[in-house]
């Protein structure tokens, strides 16, 4: 698979986790360490992965 295809798969996985964990796994856990913590870490992971990709970009003249 190309790097681009891997990035789309990773994005799809992030979205699947967005629904699966808080809505089905943590659904009855009424604590800050449940859905709140999950979504915070999950978003941080999404942001970190974007950084990993775009920091490799280099200057081009269109």
């Amino acid at each position, binding site marked *: 698979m190309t790097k681009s295809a891997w990035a789309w798969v990773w994005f799809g996985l*992030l979205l699947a986790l967005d629904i699966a964990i808080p809505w089905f796994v943590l659904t*009855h856990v009424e*604590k800050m360490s449940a859905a709140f913590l999950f979504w915070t870490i999950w978003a941080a992971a999404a942001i970190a992965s974007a950084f990993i990709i*775009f920091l490799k970009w280099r200057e081009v003249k269109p």
Partner: protein
Amino acid sequence: MSVTFWIGFGIAVYIAVGLGIALMARRQLGAGVSEFFLANRKLGGFVSALTYSATTYSAFMMIGLAGLTYLTGVGALGFELTYLCGMFMMVFFLPRFWLVGKKYGYISPMELLSDRYQNKGVGATAAILALVFLVPYGAVQLMGVGYLMNGISGGEIPVVVGIIIAVVCAIAWSRIAGLRSVAWTDAFQALLMITVSAVVLGVVINALGGFGAFFGKLESAVPGLLTVPTAKGSWNLNMFIGLALPWLFFLISNPQVSQRLFIPKSVTAMKQMLGGFLIFGFIYTLISVLWGFGATLLVPGLENADLATPRLLSLTMIPTGLAIVVMIGITAAAISTIDSILLTLSSVWARDIHKGLINPKVSEKGELRVGQWVIPIMAIIAFVFAWWAAGKTGLDFMIAPLASAASAGLLMAVPTIFGAFFWKRGTAFGAIVSMIVGAIIVLVFQLTGCKPLGWWPGVWGFVVCVPLFVIVSLATKPPREKAEEFIGYLKGALKKGRFI
């Protein structure tokens, strides 16, 4: 002196500083449409990041999202962070928009679509979609300012006065020097809004005994708000998807932000814009949600959850001076969004409707004049909508759902945008039909409150418009030559810059 006096004084200082920045920006204003609407595609990374942040984050955050958290709990965090996760798609779209913007000289995202599909009707349809659906989105910014000034002044300042102040500032910031004045005032406003909101959240959490005690109190006082679906039934999966789906594609569906992808002056500036925005967004989202949770503990039982922030700011634990500075910060957030919307809509009208359909031979000067006249006209329409909606109650008229509903309409352009960059077989007819049918479904379901199977209007529109775009495209003739040239150019340029 009364609180109302100090609010007036604070607003006067804010307007004076904003005006000063806008006038400074005007000194650098050159001639031409590209200069007025895109600052000649020469903005640095720092200003680009801040203008992107200020345009994206609005009164929606500290009022709408805080209100939604207050009423419905942690699902509001998931909904907003789903948007931020959607920003991951910037690694695909940012370089693509930027590269073709520079190569072909596009002014608006709609012009890109018209050229790529070789049909001005595509851009015009997307432009009409933007003109229709961005009005309620602009209006919620105005409502936010109105609610805020009304709440903090204890009702002395009528909601409509706050709305008028926001309208006048937005018109001024966008008319004075186009994107230059918008971007510079945005930068000032972005720094103001995140700094003051962080400070005031610190005051509230400190008053509640620090983070540990704050979280402990939430778990004991409102445990039902810490899970989805919520115990009292506010959040269910259909509502989550209904609100989050339009937000997920916000970065390409909302022209006031996708137009920003044309403006960085270099790849380095582009990286700074994206990185800066992601960090800004993550911090500001957490601040807004924690602020909403703070309100559930300190001002429980409000009938209108959008008033949670104004009520919290009017508590004696928050010094009046700080409350007024926060109010100005939120006002700045609202105005920085609506001025960008006005500027984008004016460029869309001038380029994609006036020049694209009505008068193709119009001079650049004439096009610019038309765009500048559209700014106050759109502002007045948003004002009327805000005035009307501000008197209504219920979930549908809360700031967050109203904002998301606006994006639900814009979502119908997403298959067309994906097709432009990734599918050579996409056609103008497929694009136009999918946008029109999708938008009609969204509008009808939105206005009638109809939710078959519990699915929200944006979800229904999307479910219909995606296959429609594919099927109609397969049944009609694509602009092969342009598609090969456009996507072929990107393929080579993306490789050179190590983009994916």
